[in-house]
């Protein structure tokens, strides 16, 4: 657990960057420090690994005052990722990832194993990327390596300063989703700085909203959206909070069940019968392992031929952990009334329609109907 107690930073010229901030971040929690630029969020974060000295107040990690620990040892136990990434240009991807393991004198073979494992985790093929240099990578790939490097020696805590800030929106969305998936696996205690409220709502378990060095509200994204503490929070959250609320909800929470399906090798007439029975115009088609294959539409479906011959192959699907605004945008974009929901292996898990989305939203905001 990370505990900040009356944390204050005053610079020699008298500016108070952080004023009396107290907050607790439980183990495994994703905590976002959010606020406009100059609000003290980065300063707060950098005091945790003592890149910025504390003026007054205390920071405890698992009950230990950070100022009593050897500085470099402290930092080696805390993963650190920044917007500019700061990969070492003269080191390969593998060497970059292995910096902290190297500092900790892990054996070479273990360093290598760990680098491979981490590259896999962040979605880069180890055999392809281990020996590349940073300048041979795209922006998104560099940031993945940056995240892998922060995870180098498997620290329990991660500090991330706008790590996805300088990346194009599409890649950013993808990296955010991937990072959430990674976090589900690794369960780190994360302090994540951003000024982007969408990112905060999407990623956080708890958001600490700061303004002029003060902590204004420390709450779950839902409470921040629907129970703002004051005018400033309400303004910061914005008038379109219903739309932002879509970020809070994942597809799996609101999707409907799969009505009925047909298999690719079933006789086409079976599909016709099922559609008549359920009063539907189309049915999802799956193959042997339950993987979503496509749609079959109502029409002339002779019994002596297989469903597969008439089916429209799968194009648009949504992953089960996607947030609702992305799913909704996809549906509007592609003009779909029903969106097939699949798991990581493309297995069909459910169906999402507009009514599901509306219901999810009203539940989140606490209004019924």
């Amino acid at each position, binding site marked *: 657990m990370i505990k900040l107690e009356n944390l204050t930073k005053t610079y020699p010229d008298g500016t108070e960057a952080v004023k009396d901030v107290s907050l607790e971040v439980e183990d495994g929690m994703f905590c976002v420090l959010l606020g406009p630029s100059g609000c003290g969020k980065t300063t707060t974060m950098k005091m945790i690994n003592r*890149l910025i000295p504390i003026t007054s107040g205390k920071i405890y990690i698992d009950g230990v005052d950070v100022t009593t620990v050897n500085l470099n040892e402290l930092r080696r136990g805390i993963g650190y990722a920044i917007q500019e990434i700061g990969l070492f240009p003269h080191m390969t991807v593998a060497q970059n990832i292995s910096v902290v393991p190297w*500092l900790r004198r892990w054996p070479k073979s273990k360093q290598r194993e760990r680098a491979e494992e981490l590259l896999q985790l962040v979605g880069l093929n180890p055999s392809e990327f281990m020996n590349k240099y*940073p300048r041979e990578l795209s922006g998104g790939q560099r940031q993945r390596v940056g995240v892998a490097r922060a995870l180098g020696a498997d620290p329990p805590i991660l500090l991330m300063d706008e790590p996805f800030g300088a990346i194009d929106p599409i890649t950013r969305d993808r990296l955010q989703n991937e990072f959430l998936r990674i976090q589900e696996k690794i369960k780190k205690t994360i302090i994540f700085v951003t000024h982007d409220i969408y990112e905060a709502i999407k990623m956080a378990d708890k958001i600490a909203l700061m303004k002029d060095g003060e902590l204004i509200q420390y709450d779950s994204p839902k409470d921040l959206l629907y129970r703002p503490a004051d005018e400033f929070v309400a303004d910061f959250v914005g008038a379109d909070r219903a739309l932002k609320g879509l970020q809070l909800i994942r597809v799996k929470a609101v999707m409907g069940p799969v009505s009925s399906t047909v298999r690719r090798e079933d006789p086409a007439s079976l599909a016709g019968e099922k559609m008549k029975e359920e009063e539907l115009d189309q049915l999802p088609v799956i193959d042997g392992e339950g993987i979503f294959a496509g749609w079959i539409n109502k029409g002339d479906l002779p019994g002596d031929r297989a469903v597969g011959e008439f089916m429209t192959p799968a194009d648009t699907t949504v992953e089960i952990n996607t947030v609702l605004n992305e799913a909704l945008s996809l549906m509007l974009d592609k003009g779909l009334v029903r969106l097939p929901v699949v798991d990581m292996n493309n297995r069909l898990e459910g169906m999402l329609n507009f009514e599901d989305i509306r219901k999810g939203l009203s539940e989140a905001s606490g209004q019924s109907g």
Partner: protein
Amino acid sequence: MRRSIVVIVLSVMLIGLTAWITSQEKVGILDLFTWGDIAKESRNHIKMVALSMLIATAIGVPLGVIITRRVFKRTAPFVIGVVGIGQSVPSLAVIAIMAPVLGLAFQSAIVALVIYALLPIVRNSYAGVNNISPAVIEAARGMGMSNWQIARKIELPLARPVVMTGVRISTIITVGTAELAVLVGGTGLGVITFTGVVAQEPLLILQGAAPTALMAILLGYMLEILELKITPSGVGAEVRGYG
């Protein structure tokens, strides 16, 4: 590749020119210098360049690096400014000023050459360390590298090629400037060139100037290859190429 062809062509031309002049043996009533004289003065010349470069590098690199450290950072413009004076004064004047102070001899030439050679070395050492992206240093600190580890594993390898560029540029300049050593009682290829100047004999001037140019080109090329060798893989032209 193209670069080495240029170097070879130029070298062949300069050697050819020297050989042609030397084969004339006499111009008007004057004797030209012999191959033996050229070899002897070339050795003197290169000794002078090597010694002054050794001293200039030994002073310039640490000086340039020290002024990037936090404690001395404020002194950087001042130090670079002072070192720059050495170069903004014409080299002939530097040498001339040194002569009455240190006497008409080898050492006053060396001191003058060192002063003259310092600026590119100091400037590039400073820039080489200073231009490393602050994000790289911050990441290193944030991961728990000590100052010493950062210096050795991050700053040194990244700055090395830029420092080396400074040394190379400085060497090339010094080869030329060392011609003037003869004016304060020194030796080197300037002996030949200035005999030509005094005698107002262009052929004689060229007999000293051509080997000097050849020396500058060859030394520059060798140092350039060395520079490429010590540039860490993964670091491209964006780090090299400060002049």
